[in-house]
């Protein structure tokens, strides 16, 4: 809600350039710090960061679907599981991890394309049920089907990368996911997506092909989730259907995106940091932690629909009142 608002264009050019340079500098410094982190942090910190980055990438993917496109999917686990299994199979057949992850993403995206005609016949709430049913069906199939290891799963024959290696991979995936979504937000597609979210019928009457718009978001999200699934497999020595296709993935992704801020680029990043930090803080009480997360979700939905990022942006705007006037002129909703 506080990204490149049209009102920002009103700002004088030199000032904008200065702001840009500052931002670019900060980003560069941040990127450098993140990239060099393994040289001055412990294995434990890197493992925690790995999870933050995984969730950040997943949150970006889901946010593209649900936050910008209004497609509230509860089927994320399906694509993560497909990614994990594909990577496990491919690396066991000799493919290195990174290409394996990319193929996994492509495979998950293909699966998304195959099921999309059926899922997109379902609108709104029914789409949500359909995705949940699809993911559970797939999980049950993987538990019972013996061809892919059944309920025992697959053992990975190649050794997992080092903690630092995994961290860098996760950093790359999270950065790529954020970059991709940021790029998409600069195209017409983002506008189409939001139009379909706000009123699909009107969007259609305006000549938008809503199916194609939704399909793009759905397959891209599936691709990213498949890649993260592959990354997760690369970390583990064994994958099994309960974990890979588990509903917990879906639940975690929704909470990350929602707590961070739906429909914002920074939301999933902040949400991932917050969610993992909370989990670490309460790691002796996993159930209590999840129950508290559920309560936070309810409070956020009710009182802060913009999530943590929305609250931050709001607070920032209050600190700099001269920008608020300009912004409010151009905020679309």
């Amino acid at each position, binding site marked *: 809600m506080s990204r490149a608002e049209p009102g920002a264009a009103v700002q004088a050019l030199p000032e904008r350039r200065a702001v840009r340079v500052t931002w670019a500098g900060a980003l560069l410094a941040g990127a450098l710090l993140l990239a060099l982190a393994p040289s001055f942090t412990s294995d434990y910190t890197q493992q925690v960061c790995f999870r933050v980055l995984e969730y950040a990438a997943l949150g970006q993917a889901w946010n593209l679907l649900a936050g910008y496109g209004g497609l509230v999917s509860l089927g994320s686990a399906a694509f993560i599981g497909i990614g994990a299994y594909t990577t496990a199979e491919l690396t066991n057949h000799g493919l290195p991890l990174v290409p394996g992850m990319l193929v996994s993403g492509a495979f998950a995206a293909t699966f998304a394309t195959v099921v999309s*005609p059926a899922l997109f016949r379902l609108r709104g709430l029914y789409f949500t049920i359909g995705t949940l049913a699809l993911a559970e*069906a797939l999980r*049950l199939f993987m538990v019972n089907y013996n061809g892919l290891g059944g309920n025992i799963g697959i053992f990975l024959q190649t050794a997992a990368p080092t903690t630092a290696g995994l961290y860098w991979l996760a950093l790359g995936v999270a950065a790529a996911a954020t970059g991709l979504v940021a790029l998409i937000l600069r195209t017409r597609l983002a506008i189409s997506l939001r139009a379909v979210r706000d009123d699909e019928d009107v969007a259609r009457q305006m000549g938008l092909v809503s199916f194609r718009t939704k399909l793009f978001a759905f397959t891209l999200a599936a691709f990213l989730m498949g890649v993260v699934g592959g990354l997760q497999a690369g970390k583990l020595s064994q994958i099994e259907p309960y974990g890979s296709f588990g509903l917990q993935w879906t639940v975690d992704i929704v909470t990350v995106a*929602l707590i961070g801020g739906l429909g914002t680029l920074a939301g999933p990043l902040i949400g991932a940091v917050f969610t993992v930090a909370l989990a670490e803080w309460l790691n002796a009480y996993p159930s209590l932690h999840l*129950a508290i997360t559920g309560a936070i*979700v*309810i409070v956020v*939905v009710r009182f802060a*629909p913009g999530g943590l990022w929305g609250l931050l942006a709001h607070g920032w705007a209050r600190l700099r009142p001269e920008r608020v006037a300009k912004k409010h002129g151009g905020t679309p909703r």
Partner: protein
Amino acid sequence: MQVPSAHTLVTALVSGVLLGGLLAITALGLSLVLGVMRLINLVHGEVVIAGAYLGYVLLSKLGLDPLAGLLLIAPALALLAYPLQRVLLLPLVGKGVQAPLLTTFGLSVIAQNLFVLVFSADTRSLGRSYATAPLHLAGLEVPAIYAISFAVALVVVVGVHLLVQRTGAGREIRAAAEDPVAAAVLGVDVGRVYARTYALATACAGVGGVLVGLAFSFEPTTGTSYLLSGFAVVVLGGLGSVLGTLIGGIGLGVIESLGGAVFGDGYRDFIGLVVFLAFLALRPQGVLGRADR
């Protein structure tokens, strides 16, 4: 996959029909909330399991039989649900479909983990001798609890049907479901109707949960499968139709039972979900009646 004998198939068919009663009653609350409030109640499965856990508490602490305990469990859950709806869900009416959906999602996460905290993650069941005893029906053998739950489901479903169709409170429910704005204009307190519907739905789910506990084992995360079977029943039986849940339940029960007999028991739920997805994809508007977005 083995070719089952005719006897196996007939047994599967009969137990499928009877199991349909259980599936219908676990779906009834979901159908009511979806039909009247246009809300996907993602915490529905946890309410079902809450019923099972309450039955467990009554049985283990007070020695009360779960079937007799129904008379305590259903009102207790309704009393819990009424204020919950008024405080958490009612303020979100008119704020789009996502906000209430995600609120029930949060409730479901809370409930699942409260179950773990209070009852641990162990698998439990309400072991009663009459439930597990086999029942002989014309040369076929089915678990007695299937027949018991079918009878209970029949009573509850018909009771709710009569409540909705024949009473003043039911007329208000139907009016609010049909057109909440018009109903409000005509003096119906739609918020109160919603809260009552939610309470009624929760009570029904709790009854279903006790039967689930008697027939099968359960653990904190079991709710999800009853949420999904509930959706399948609602879609098969028709949205907003109380008697339809019985038809949908029997339909799903037969499909799952036959699927289990043909492909192996592990595939029961999978077959149910696949048929559900196919149904949803092939004719959503036809089955869902008043198509809703």
